[in-house]
């Protein structure tokens, strides 16, 4: 009975909330949340792309320095980038001086057009990946979020980042050239505030995605992140954290995933069988666990199979 009441309440909530959201004025309602001195984050929903969320499923951020505003990632569409700019101007009247793009996934860089007049800086591998795959990502997002994408072109970064420390308007930013989630993942550690922008190297309470992942490389990278002297962790997806727990949780899930795929392949399971593997309880509270695990199988299974099954001819 209690379950039925709960279900009805939940259904009513869903109907009510989609009703509100589905009147599309294409407003992402971006509200800057302060995570440290001069440092703000736009926290996205822990969901997959949909028309209802318009692609606002990602964390982006900015640092206000005496030499202008440093933007980190530009969101999933031109509209997102434009609205981000507006939201930044409610906090500071300083101009935007440069943009850093953490990696080449569409939710992190498709707002670039709104920032086309300033340096947009990314790792060389990220630039290469955007040139190869960016337009296809945008094409696909039109199908998933529709008119939220209006006017969006995959604008590639215009400057290549050099790993190391840069001093910008009183902030000492360390750019780290890493990989694992993709072949080019930039993390940014602000030594002045202790804020680490990890990009998608960290998903917090939101199951990680693997379309371009290299699990063993990712695990190595997580060890690097763990040693960094940060106080605030801004993940690519999920809530901002003040400790290293999200990193441990990432290591836990990736290690389990690696082992589970190995075991499944060795037992001769098909991909669809492997998708039915029981998922450990400790991961159940992570958003999108079932669907992302299935997606990971489609991304990774054949590479595990080819390690076990050798060609005979």
């Amino acid at each position, binding site marked *: 009975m209690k379950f039925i009441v709960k279900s009805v309440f939940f259904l009513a909530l869903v109907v009510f909330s989609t009703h509100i959201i589905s009147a599309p004025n294409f407003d992402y309602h971006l509200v800057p949340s302060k995570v440290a001195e001069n440092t703000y984050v736009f926290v996205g929903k822990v969901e997959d792309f949909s028309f209802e969320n318009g692609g606002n499923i990602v964390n982006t951020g900015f640092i206000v320095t005496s030499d202008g505003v440093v933007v980190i990632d530009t969101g999933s569409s031109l509209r997102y980038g434009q609205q981000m700019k507006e939201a930044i101007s409610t906090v500071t009247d300083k101009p935007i001086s440069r943009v850093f793009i953490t990696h080449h996934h569409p939710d992190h860089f498709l707002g670039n057009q709104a920032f086309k007049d300033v340096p947009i800086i990314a790792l060389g591998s990220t630039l290469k990946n955007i040139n190869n795959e960016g337009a296809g990502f945008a094409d696909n997002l*039109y199908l998933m979020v529709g008119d939220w994408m209006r006017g969006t072109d995959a604008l590639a970064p215009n400057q290549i980042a050099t790993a190391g420390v840069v001093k910008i308007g009183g902030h000492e930013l360390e750019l780290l050239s890493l990989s694992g989630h993709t072949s080019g993942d930039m993390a940014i550690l602000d030594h002045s505030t202790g804020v680490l922008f990890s990009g998608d190297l960290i998903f917090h309470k939101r199951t990680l995605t693997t379309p371009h992942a290299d699990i063993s490389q990712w695990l190595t990278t997580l060890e690097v992140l763990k040693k960094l002297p940060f106080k605030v962790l801004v993940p690519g997806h999920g809530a901002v954290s003040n400790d290293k727990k999200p990193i441990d949780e990432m290591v836990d899930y990736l290690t389990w995933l690696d082992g589970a795929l190995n075991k499944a392949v060795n037992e001769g399971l098909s991909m669809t069988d492997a998708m039915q593997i029981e998922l450990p309880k400790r991961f159940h509270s992570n958003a999108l666990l079932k669907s992302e695990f299935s997606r990971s199988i489609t991304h990774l299974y054949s590479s595990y199979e080819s390690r076990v099954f050798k060609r005979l001819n």
Partner: protein
Amino acid sequence: MKPLFVLFITLFLTAACASDDHRGVIEEPYRGLPYHAPTTLIPPVGVTKVSATQLKKLLSSGNKPILIDVYGAIFREESLDFDGAWLVSTPRKNIPGSVWLPNVGKQELNTVVKEYFKNNLIELTEDDKSKLLIIYCIEDCWMAWNAAKRAHEWGYTNVMWFREGIDGWKDINGLLEDSQPVNLPVNE
């Protein structure tokens, strides 16, 4: 000698002008993937652009245009042995009174889709090449641009491109209704 020289110069200049003229009408090629991307604001040569408000006026006039939605769907060779249905991934709404002909604005058409577009145009216009055609899909859709260009090249003289498509229609609070694509011709 002198008249010959003049003749030569005249011929040379005429040839030069002709080639200039020719260069002037070289058209933009059909656009390929990605089809969902911001389009040019300039319609294909020979096609005119129509805005949402202009379209609304046209629709309330006595001389109703033929509305063609070219939004994409999945073509399956095997469906030609059954009902010729397109595979539609998400339900589509378009402008009431429209005919939905998927994929006819792709960069290149296979024989089946090409004949499908040709025959549907003949049927819709009652084989009158001067009938007003309005071609659209969504905003940022090269398939509508391509399809308008194609219809014009096939001899239709009154083709309009509604660049903003259903998104522009929604902007002016235009009504949309559920739509199904016209089936492909099935194999004999």
